[in-house]
């Protein structure tokens, strides 16, 4: 019995390691920002700021709820599970204090949005990144 449980844990570890891709935080090449830290990223994505410290206005762009990228980003960058994030937004939203970021269906849709505006920030699987966007942070 113990062996079975251990092999399940190992298997689960392997499976989850397999789906955990590295995320890249991206902006348009012309956006006047070259790097961002996790705290600044959290402030933008949790609607506690809408400007980067140097004054550049940045609107966050999200991936679809429940997508691997979104779950990964919520956990690693925002430190919240999907349900915690959903409770957080219910409090902000229904008190009229802001909305969750707009969602796009996949990496290429996010990149297309971000590449087209100096005022957007997004995140995608690092493997999807091409030179239409600029990486300002990698989240392993």
């Amino acid at each position, binding site marked *: 019995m113990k062996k079975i449980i251990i092999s399940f844990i190992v298997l689960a570890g392997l499976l989850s390691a397999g789906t955990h891709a590295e995320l890249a935080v991206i902006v348009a090449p012309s956006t006047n920002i070259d790097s961002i830290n996790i705290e600044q990223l959290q402030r933008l994505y949790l609607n506690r700021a809408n400007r980067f410290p140097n004054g550049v206005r940045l609107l966050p762009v999200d991936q679809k709820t429940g997508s691997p990228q979104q779950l990964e980003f919520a956990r690693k960058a925002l430190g919240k599970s999907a349900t915690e994030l959903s409770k957080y937004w219910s409090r902000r939203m*229904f008190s*009229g204090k802001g909305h969750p970021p707009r969602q796009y269906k996949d990496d290429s849709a996010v990149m297309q949005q971000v590449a087209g505006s100096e005022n957007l920030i997004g995140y995608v699987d690092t493997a999807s990144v091409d030179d239409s966007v600029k990486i300002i942070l990698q989240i392993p």
Partner: protein
Amino acid sequence: MNKRFYLAVAATLLLARGGLAFAVENIEINGFLTVGAARSSSSTDSQNGNITDSVNFDQNTRAGIQVSADINDRMSVTAQLLGTNREDDNFDATFDWGYISYAMTENMDIRGGKIKFPTFLVSDYIEVGYAYPWIRPPAEVYSSNPITAISGADVLFRVQLGATDLLVQPYFGVANDQDALVPQEVLPALGLNPGTVKYENFDAKDMAGINVALSNSFATVRAGYLQTKVSASAFGVNNEDVSFWSVGANLDWNNIIGYGEYFQRDIDGMANAFFPNQKGWYGTLGYRINRFLPHITYAQLLDDNSNNDPGTGLEQDSLTLGLRYELGAGAALKMEAERVKPKSGTRGLFMEPTGDINIYSVAVDVIF
């Protein structure tokens, strides 16, 4: 300065008109729903008649729709419709609150219209059960302010202090035609029998208050003060002074959830017969285990009247054990068992003096 302000307002109104005429961008529609039931172990009903010894869905069932739209870069409109059981037992939808918000600067918004009354930690979203751990926020504290929204204006002034955000929110306004539950002790003067649930209109004018909150990624600490003058012409209550202050904090740190709040209200003259001077507090602790959040709450309501005050103080304390279970993102199932102990000889928040009462509640909260 004044001239510039008026010009800005005039320009914005023109822009807003233009915006509305062509297209309103970024309309967001969100909703929430709570279906719940409660049952008490006693034949003595709660003073609002909502919790009795038969299973009752009324008080715990409500639905809301919120619509918000950006009119332009600086202006937005937000409004909420709420469907709930009013005192006449009909399910009504009402315009609960709605306002126009104008961003004066990056860190300052001015809002005008009907705004949610920021009395306590969860007052801004008190109808949205999904947003907090309990089925009903502790009555010993939350029942102390019957006004949930005011007509007026407020300013949201935000300051970033390192990783902490400071919010300073002064507000001004009135709340007319509010429903006040007539205390059981006052019923005979109206020729009504004890045990009747009776609401009367009252007006709160010259309301001015301030809400200050400090928050970071895992905690919020807030304090608020408010003063107003209440009138109820049917009872000869005329411009009596009310002051109300409250402090509170909440924590969401490493799976530990905590809430704690305290309030004190002082009400002069004849208005005191309807709203006696009271103070109260509660503390909630919970620990999140995956999808489960077991929590415990102790709450106390205390009389703060002096001998000359006409009102009757109501005192009780309660202990609540609750469990919240996440049904995926956006839905939760909650169960609670509450033991309420009205102070010996007083009726607490019930119809008449009674021994300890158990209340069992279950609810499902959804947002969409």
